[in-house]
Structures are given as C-alpha cells and as structure tokens.
C-alpha cells in the first residue's frame, strides 16, 4: 500500500465527520433557500424564456420563436417607451420629494418638544393606510372636483373672502401625473422620515456637544457634521424608496387606471399580459424592469453592506 493511499484512508472518516457537521449547520438554512429559489428565481427564468417568443393565447397557432424582436418592440413601441419615461419620472420625483420632506420632518422630530411621541404617531399614519385605500381616498375624497376636500377647501376659503365662485379645478384630469405623485409622496414621506430620524439619533452626542462648545452655529453643525453623518441614511432612503416606488402598481391602477400618460411599467406590463394577452411582449418589458431595478439594486446592496459592515465592526 502506498503511503498516499494510507493517509487518504485515515483522513476519510474525519472528513466525513466534518462534512456531516457542516451540513448540520447548513440544514436550517436550506428550506428557506430552496423555497425562495423555487418561487422567485424559477418564474423569472420562465419570463426570460417567454420574452423570446411571439406568444398571444388569443391566436395560439402563431406561437413561435421571436428572438429579440419583443425587446425591439419595447424600445420602439411609443406606448411602452412612454411608460419607461413615466416610470423614471414618477420614481425620481417621488423619491426626491419624499427625501426632502422626510429630512425636514426628521429634523423637526429630532428636537424634544411637547407631545413628540404623538406627532410621530400622527406622521406615520399615512404609511399605515392600505395602499388601495390611500389611492381611493385621494381619488374620491380629496381630488373629486365636486365634493373633494381640496375643492371644498377652496370654496370655503373663497367664501371667507367673499368670492362666490372660487376656482374648482379637476385635479386628476388637469394634472394626472402630479395627482398620482402627490398621493405617493404622502404615503412614502413617513418612511423616509423614519429612516432619517434613525440616522439623526445615531449621531454621536459627544461630537455634537464638542461642536457646540467650539461655537459652531446650527447651520454649520448641520452642514459639516449632520449631513455627512446622514449621507449613508440618505443613500439608503433614496435606493430603497426607488426599489419600492419603481414597482408601484396600486396608485397608478386606482387613481388614473394608467390613463392620461400616467401608465408606469408595472401597470403597462399588467395591461399587456392581463388585458392584451401579449405574453412575449409583457415578458420582455418585465425583463427591462428587472434590468433597471438591478442597476439601482446593485447600489442599494452596496450601501446596505457598508452600513452592515459598520454594524458588524461595532459589535
């Protein structure tokens, strides 16, 4: 027996034991992993495959391989191209507005004042209204031109100043995209505020104290201490907000039903496969959304992982 074989025989049981132990450690992880891969990754692979076919169940005989033609349609079809633009516009404006408003609110709530807990609770309420309810609320109870709150308030203010016929705009048809955005900003500002508030409250107290002793004004403290400290949290808010809002369906579906140039990609994809039955085209559009989200998500993951590493180092 050569020495090599002997040593291998000696090593085997030990290695098997180590292997068994490694699997015992991994085992609790497996159900969750297998489940997630099966339910989220497999459908996406199927979407990729379908996107290469020309497939409409209304004309089943004409299903055939189409290569990348669905993708060319996504890029050239004016309706789909519009919905790509709408998605970008909607997401960007809502994210910017919620971050700015959320930062202002977080700064207000970071100070101590009478009833701070109550104000915090009031502020997060919009986020806790079921999204469909929120969208219906904005559409019918606020925007309605005849008896919505907005025009009601205009009438009321008009009466105060003796104006018997104050303007009564039709908000949704007059400014459809802004109407959708306002409802989304209302719902998502609390989320940004909570993240930024957590960031504000994690500022090291000694640092702030030292700045105050050195005679730094509140603007200087904000500009040179708070803002750099908040950078990570701002990035996190922007990226998570983008990931959630890019996918928004409820508000667009409810408030305008995608009409008046407010259809974003999730809504258009829903329309394309659910109503128009263009399976291949819908799948290609879905893949486009995934690529867009992946670009954002890569940044998001990097931000989260840097925060995470900080946390791990502190522990």
């Amino acid at each position, binding site marked *: 027996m050569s020495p090599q074989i002997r040593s291998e025989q000696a090593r085997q049981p030990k290695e098997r034991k180590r292997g068994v132990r490694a699997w015992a450690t991994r085992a609790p992880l497996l159900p969750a992993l297998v489940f997630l891969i099966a339910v989220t990754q497999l459908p996406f692979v199927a979407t990729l495959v379908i996107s290469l076919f020309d497939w409409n169940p209304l004309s089943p005989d004409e299903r055939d391989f189409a290569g990348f033609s669905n993708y060319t349609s996504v890029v050239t079809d004016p309706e789909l191209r519009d919905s790509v633009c709408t998605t970008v516009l909607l997401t960007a404006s809502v994210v910017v507005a919620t971050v700015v408003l959320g930062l202002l609110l977080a700064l207000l709530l970071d100070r101590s004042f009478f009833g701070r807990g109550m104000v915090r609770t009031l502020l997060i309420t919009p986020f806790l209204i079921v999204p469909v*309810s929120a969208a219906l609320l904005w559409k019918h109870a606020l925007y309605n031109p005849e008896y919505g709150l907005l025009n009601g308030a205009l009438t009321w203010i008009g009466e105060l100043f003796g104006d018997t016929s104050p303007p009564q705009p039709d908000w949704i048809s007059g400014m459809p995209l802004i109407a959708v955005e306002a409802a989304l900003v209302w719902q998502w500002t609390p989320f940004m505020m909570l993240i930024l508030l957590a960031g504000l409250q994690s500022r090291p107290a000694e640092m702030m104290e030292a700045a105050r002793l050195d005679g730094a004004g509140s603007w200087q403290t904000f500009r040179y201490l708070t803002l750099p400290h908040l950078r990570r949290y701002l990035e996190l808010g922007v990226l998570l907000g983008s990931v959630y809002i890019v996918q928004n369906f409820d508000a667009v579906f409810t408030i305008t039903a995608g009409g008046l140039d407010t259809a974003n990609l999730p809504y258009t994809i829903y329309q394309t496969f659910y109503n128009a039955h263009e399976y291949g085209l*819908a799948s290609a559009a879905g893949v486009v959304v995934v690529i867009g989200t992946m670009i954002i998500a890569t940044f998001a993951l990097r931000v989260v992982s840097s925060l995470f590493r900080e946390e791990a180092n502190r522990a």
Partner: protein
Amino acid sequence: MTATTATLAPSKLLPPAARRARRRSAALGLVAWVAGLGFCLPAMWMLLTSLHSEADAATNPPPLAAALTLDNYRQFFGADGGPSPWPSLINSLSASVFSTVLVLLLALPAAYALSIRRVRKWTDVLFFFLSTKMLPVVAGLLPVYLFAKNAGMLDNIWLLVILYTSMNLPIAVWMMQSFLADVPVSIIEAAQVDGARLPTVLTRIVAPVAGPGIAATALICFIFSWNELLFARVLTGVVAQTAPVYLSGVVTSQGLFLAQLCAASVVVSLPVLAAGYAAQDKLVQGLSLGAVK
C-alpha cells in the same frame, strides 16, 4: 430635569439669548405639530367622511358640523343586502396569517444558521436573500399565472399564501438575523456547558432577548400580505378575493358612494393601523431591510 430648571430659572430671569432659544424651540415644536396634523389630515378626513351621511359627504364646502352616523359601516357589512365583505376580509386574514406563520417557520431556522451557529460565508447568503427582494414582482407574474392556470390553482388562497411567503421571507430573514445576533453567544455556550439542551436554550435565552423583534417581524409580514393588490388581483377571482381587491371593486360595482367608500377603506385599513402602531419602533428596521437599527 426640566421641572427643576423651570423652578430655578423662570423664563424672565433667563439671559435674552436663552429666552430666544426657548422661544425658537417652542415655535419649531408648533411647526412639528402642524406638520403632523397636516399629514394625518387626509386620514382623519376619511374617518370623518365615513361617519357622515351620503348626502352630507357630497356637500361642497365640507360640512364640519353635520350629524355623525354609523350607517355607512352597517351598509358596508351588508345591512341592505349588498355583497358582504366578510368573505374577502376572511380571505385576507387567512392568507396573511398563514403566510406569516410559514414565513416564521422558514425564516427562524435560517436566521439561526446566519447568526447564532453561523454557516461559512453567512454574509453572502444574507445578501442573496436580500437580492431576491429587489426582483420586481411583475417580472415573475406571468409564469406564475400560467402555472396556476394549468395546475388549476387560480382563485385559490393557498397560492397567495405561497407567493406572500416568498415576498416576505427575505425581509423576515434579515430582520430576525439581526435580532438573533443580539443574543449573547457566551450565555448560550455557558448554558450548554451546564447541560442545557437546544429547547431550553431557545425558550430560556433566545426567546426573551429576540422575542419582541420576532413579534415585530411577524406584524410587518402580516401588513405586507394584507396590503398586497397585484398578485391578488391577477390570481384570484370570486372565491379567494382579498380585501384590497374587494375594495378596488366596490367603486365600479356599486357606483360611487363616497361615505361608504370611506367606511370600507377605514375597515380594511384598521388591521394594518393596529399592527403598524404596535410594531412602530421596529417598522423602519424591517422596511430598510435591517440596515438601520
């Protein structure tokens, strides 16, 4: 502490700079109150409208002093023979509860393997979980729909349970990983040296430390499942219809009754409001995928 400073130094005795600072702080507190009430106003308006009669609700300008009534709630629950919302509420409740239970069953062991008895490369695994959350649901919807159609699983609450579980599992693993990581390993090891077995360790050491976090995770999963509209709309019909789908159909099927619509919205939102207020502190941690503590 504020009480003693107040008795020692009444505001008139303060130097002008401090008095100015105090006045500014009071003003900012007021601004915060106004902002809070402003943000809550649409929600309060919904509640108020739901308590008005249909005629009062449709008045312009809004009637602030109109009589309050519970009629809309009675009508919503089918007092006048309209479609009852109960089946959809029960569907939502069962889909949310079952999927939350399933999430906990899958996520707890995984979080245990990622925090207490760590697998190798545990951060990579954690990030894999997170990355699945970033995959837009709409991109996988069609294959799921086709599969469900061919397998005869359309309009079935269990399909929603499975999808909601996959939707919430990444968040739950992330949150629970961070809560379980707060359990001091040294105490667990000491207990094991003293002869404690796994069940004892879990109930006596892990549960008290991580329990509140796990409860908050469950509430957040419940909220997300309850809120979901797109899957439920595409994959359910009559039998398995959920509350958000019912709500989005109320308007089209019965014409627009504003007060009743508001009552319906309040009822559907109540479970989420309750769960959300209860999980307030942990909510942001859950939504920011565990990155913010």
